[in-house]
């Protein structure tokens, strides 16, 4: 098996699994329980929060809210801020290429009467800070922009964007760092709040966090008990939260090595794929080395991915459908690519577990498949 779909999810690391199993055995208590066993769980939960802040070199000006993953974190951040601060203004800004959990949260707020701006991107899939500046006004209370695009790996200049947002004192800056955390140096302390999932960094599905500055309040989306600073009700998942801390520690500890490793693989593949006249590269050169997106000029992407799957090579092609029921990438469309190109893209995404050898096998197999597949 060659697994090049790490932007979808990754294999949980041994340390993560060990931590989860061990804690389920040793400390299954509810951190909200008042007895000594519960208090022990509570202390461990607080330690996990501290560990996460430490991995990200953040001061205790920040809070760690554990959630079920990035989709929940994004929803909580966006709806929570918009609804909490709506008296300050009703303009909220995002981009056309965000993950559905961000886009749909904005669309739902739009229906409720918020003024939503969906920023266009440049051809490389990033937002021009100037475009953001033009769209900011005194009514703006929230800007949400992803750090790294999940389809193309396009890297936004978070520092530049944050400076613009913070020149408007009423506006908060939310960043979806799901595809960037543990994969890129990010200026976390310039962001007001950010979301991520555990399972994209060799952690567990169903774990994630929203990290936010202490001075921010959110209108909570799940009512109930007073867990997570009153922002998210529900019994804390101590073993999962600790596993998240472990995954993040592992991902950040060897950040530079991991980046270099991914870069070796993706640069090699990019160079080879660009020689192939069947292929159009979609990922920008300056993008994340963990994601490589290209389109097929003449073949159908779903056929090629199915054929790769037969050979035990797992990659991703677009799965979302447009209104006509055609699978098409709205990200590539927003970047200005043709419909045909947006309908026939393939995404390779890497992890620290992939090897150059796998990349070579992939290239040979792909070549073979392209030769025996008919044109669309």
């Amino acid at each position, binding site marked *: 098996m060659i697994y090049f779909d790490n932007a979808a999810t990754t294999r949980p690391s041994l340390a993560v699994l060990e931590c989860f199993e061990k804690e389920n055995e040793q400390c299954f208590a509810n951190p909200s329980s008042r007895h000594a066993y519960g208090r022990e769980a509570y202390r461990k939960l607080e330690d996990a929060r501290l560990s996460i802040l430490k991995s990200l070199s953040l001061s205790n000006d920040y809070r760690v809210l554990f959630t079920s993953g990035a989709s929940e974190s994004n929803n909580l951040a966006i709806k929570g801020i918009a609804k909490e601060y709506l008296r300050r203004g009703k303009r909220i800004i995002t981009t056309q290429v965000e993950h559905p959990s961000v886009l749909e949260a904005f669309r739902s707020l739009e229906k409720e009467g918020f003024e939503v701006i969906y920023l266009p991107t440049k051809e490389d899939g990033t937002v021009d800070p100037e475009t953001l500046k033009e769209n900011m006004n005194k009514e703006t209370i929230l800007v949400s922009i992803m750090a790294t695009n999940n389809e193309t790996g396009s890297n936004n200049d978070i520092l530049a964007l944050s400076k613009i947002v913070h020149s408007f004192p009423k506006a908060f800056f939310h960043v979806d760092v799901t595809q960037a955390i543990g994969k890129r140096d990010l200026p976390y302390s310039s962001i007001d709040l950010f979301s991520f999932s555990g399972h994209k960094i060799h952690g567990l599905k169903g774990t994630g966090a929203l990290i936010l500055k202490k001075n921010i309040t959110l209108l909570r989306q799940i009512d109930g008990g007073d867990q997570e600073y009153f922002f998210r009700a529900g019994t804390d998942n101590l073993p999962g939260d600790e596993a998240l801390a472990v995954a993040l520690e592992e991902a950040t500890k060897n950040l530079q090595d991991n980046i270099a490793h991914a870069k070796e693989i993706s640069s090699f593949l990019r160079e080879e794929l660009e020689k192939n006249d069947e292929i159009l590269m979609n990922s920008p050169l300056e993008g994340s080395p963990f994601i490589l997106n290209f389109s097929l000029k003449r073949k159908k992407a779903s056929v090629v991915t*199915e*054929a790769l*799957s*037969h050979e035990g090579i797992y990659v991703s092609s677009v799965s979302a459908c447009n209104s006509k029921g055609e699978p098409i990438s709205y990200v590539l469309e927003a970047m200005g690519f043709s419909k045909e190109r947006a309908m026939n893209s393939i995404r390779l995404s890497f992890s620290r577990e992939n090897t150059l050898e796998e990349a070579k096998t992939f290239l040979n197999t792909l070549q073979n498949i392209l030769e025996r597949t*008919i044109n669309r």
Partner: protein
Amino acid sequence: MNYDHIMIHYGELSTKGNNKRAFIKELGKNIRHALKGYSSLEYHSDHDHTYITLNGEDPKPIISLLEEVAGIQRISLVYKSEKDFETLAKNALGLIQNEEGKTFKVIAKRIDKTYPKHSFDIACDLGEYILKNTDLSVDVHKPDISLHVEIRAEAAYLYAHSYRGAGGYPLGMNGKVMMLLSGGIDSPVAAYLLLRRGIRIECIHFAAPPYTSDAVLDKLKDILAKLNIYQADIRLNIVPFTKLQLAIYQNVEEPYCITIMRRMMFRIADKLAKSHHCLGLATGESVGQVASQTLDSMIAINDVTNYPILRPLAVVDKIASIAMAEKIGTYEISVRPFEDCCTIFKPKRPKTKPKISECEYYEKHFEWESLVDEAVKNVSVIIVKDGVSTFYQHDDMQDDDEENKSEAE
């Protein structure tokens, strides 16, 4: 007082003369299979009915299972009573007192001609007894409760509730057909209608990887598992169709591609049907639904086989077909989202009135016979039995063919 038996009426079987014994035996087997989860039931069959002694089991779920067994006309919930009139009257009263309604009618049938009262008298006398002892009144036209009494040699049977069965003939009595299964909404419904008629099925699916997704196979397994209610084990033949499909695509003008493709599918199905002792082919086609399902197309397609081609949905509209698919639980499987990569082969202007002569003209232009043989040779098989599927690669199939032969003998 509770009903203690279920009486099964055979219906269409009665027309079958000498074969009737075999039919009843087969039906008995199928009934026992459908009810195998209930170990305390006892069965007794005679020339007219099969009786199931409930031994305290709740009849409701049993009746719903029986409603799906082919060959049953009617299912009645009965009370078995002593025949002497006094006991019979008491039991009838006891039963009718549990029923809801204000009016009633007694319908009597005397099969045991040695019984001293005539049918009409039994009905009158029972009616009188019930009138005397309850607040009910008689309404012979639209009664709330119709109490049936059947006097038979061994006992009298009382019942007020009958349920319509699936009809048709016991499964297997009409032989087996080769069903073309796509994974769409219609073909599972067509298969279901065949099974309800008592026709066994074996399925054939044409896979063109990587142009079609393997996800279809998972769908088909789940669909067949749903159909296992009606036929305990179903064989699915998976034909590797890619080479042939590409050859058609390369050699045939676009408007004729679909017609030629269907002709090739039927040729392959025909060959498999022969070696697997099927007596016909079947599809989920509905006249006019798509280009390849016009009557003109059917003429062109039928031309390649001598088998009867059963099309249970020929005149059923899509809405009715969806309703049936929902009822049998295959709809949600059929509409499961997965990427269909077959669109490459979807012609832009398919011929709605293809001609056989044109088909033959195109087929002269390429060597398809060997490709058809190769496809037949490389069939792989999934057996779905009681909801569990087992996969057999074509190499392992030799034993299985042997088995088929001995079965035929």
